[in-house]
C-alpha cells in the first residue's frame, strides 16, 4: 500500500515525506556537510568537485549549481537542509524563501511587511490564488511574462 498523502492538493507546496526523503537523501546529506566551516570553504572553491563526491543525480547537482531551490525540493531536497547552501552563500531564510516565488527580494520583503501571502485561493490546487501554478512566476517577473 502506498503512503496516504492528503497534502498533494496544496498548491506550491511539497511535503517532505518518506518518498521525498529517500529521493533526496544524498542531496540533503551533502547539504549537512556544509555545517562545517572547512567544507563550506571547499565548496566555495570548487562546487562541482564537492558535489561529485556525493552519489547525487546529475539533475540534483545542476539544481544546486543553479541555486534553483524549487528544483532542489522537487528532487527530494528539504528547505532546512538546503538552507545550509544559502548560509554558505551568505543568504538569509527570507532571501531563500523569496527566491522560490519568482518575486524580487524587495517585492517578497514588501509582501511580508504587508502581512504576508493570503491563504485565500491558496488552500487547494485549482483555486485562483497567487501560489497556483498558472500564476508563476510572481511579481514583476510574472507581469512581464504575461504582457
Amino acid at each position: 500500500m502506498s503512503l496516504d498523502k492528503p497534502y498533494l492538493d496544496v498548491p506550491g507546496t511539497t511535503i517532505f515525506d518518506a518518498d521525498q526523503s529517500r529521493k533526496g537523501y544524498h542531496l540533503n546529506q551533502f547539504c549537512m556537510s556544509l555545517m562545517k566551516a572547512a567544507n563550506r570553504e571547499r565548496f566555495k572553491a570548487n562546487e562541482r568537485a564537492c558535489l561529485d563526491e556525493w552519489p547525487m543525480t546529475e539533475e540534483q547537482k545542476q539544481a544546486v549549481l543553479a541555486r534553483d531551490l524549487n528544483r532542489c525540493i522537487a528532487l527530494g531536497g528539504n528547505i532546512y537542509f538546503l538552507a545550509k547552501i544559502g548560509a554558505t552563500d551568505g543568504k538569509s531564510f527570507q532571501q531563500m524563501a523569496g527566491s522560490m516565488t519568482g518575486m524580487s527580494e524587495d517585492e517578497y520583503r514588501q509582501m511580508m511587511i504587508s502581512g504576508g501571502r493570503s491563504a485565500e485561493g491558496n488552500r487547494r490546487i485549482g483555486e485562483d490564488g497567487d501560489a497556483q501554478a498558472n500564476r508563476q512566476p510572481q511579481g514583476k517577473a510574472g507581469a512581464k511574462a504575461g504582457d
Partner: protein
Amino acid sequence: MAHITASVYTSHVPAIGAAIDLGKTGEPYWQPLFKGYEFSRQWMKEHTPDVIFLVYNDHATAFSLDMIPTFAIGCAAAFQPADEGWGPRPVPTVIGHPELAAHIAQSVIQDDFDLTIVNKMDVDHGLTVPLNLMCGSPAAWPCPVIPFAVNVVQYPVPSGRRCFNLGQAIGRAVESFDAPLKVQIWGTGGMSHQLQGPRAGLINKEWDNRFLDRLIADPEGLSRLPHIDYVREAGSEGIELVMWLIARGAMSDVARDAASGAAKPTVAHRFYHVPASNTAVGHLILENPA
C-alpha cells in the same frame, strides 16, 4: 515534589537570533517585535524557574537524515550552540539538568511514550532564540534547560493528539520528581509560515489567533486538528505548532487526574506580530494556579 509553575509559547524564527546577534533589535523593522517581549523578560526575572523544559525542533542540525527521532530528550550536562552554517551563535552554553531529564525519560517511557535519549547534542536556533526572547542576552542562561526535540521536518510528524498526551505524561513525570523544583515548560515554533515553493510567505492571522484562543481555552479539542489543516491554513512549516500542545498538555487543568472544573491557567501575556522574516510570531505565557 517538583511542580510546573507556568508554560511559555513562542515562535523561534532564526532571523530574530540574527537581529539580536547583529545588534539590530532597535531598528524599526524589529522594534515592535522586541517590544512584545518586554513584559516577558521582566516576568522571567520575577519568575525564574529552577529548570526549563524546552520543547523545540531541530532544523537539520543535530539530526541529519541518518537518524530521525520523533521525540528526543536531552540528558546531557551541557549542550553547545550549533554551527548551522552561519557559524555558532554567540550565546551561552546551555546547561542541562541530567537528573530531572533522566527521571522524566524513565517516567514517560514507562508511561508508553518511547523517547529517544540523547547524551550528546548541539542545540540550534529553535532552542536558543526562545531563550534570548525570554531572558535577553545574559552571560549565562538563568537556569538549567532540558532540551526536548520533536521531529517536525520529515513526515509523518507526531499528531497534535500524541503531543498533547505526551505533555500530560511529562506533567505527571515532573510532579513525581522528588525535589522541590519550580519547572517551566516551553513550547516553541510556528506560528503560520511557509518557507518553500511558490506558496512561501503564507501567513494566516485569523487562523493563528483562533489557535491561540483554543490553546488557552480548549487545548483538548485543538489537539484533534489533523496535520492537513495546519498545512493548508498555516503553511507547511506551521506544523511546528503541534509542539505547543506538548507544553499545554503539561498544565494542571488538563492533567489526566484533574477534577473536572480544575482551575484554568492565567494568561499572563499574549502577543502576536507579523512579520519576522517569513513568519508570524505568536507568544503566550500561561501560569498554573499557585
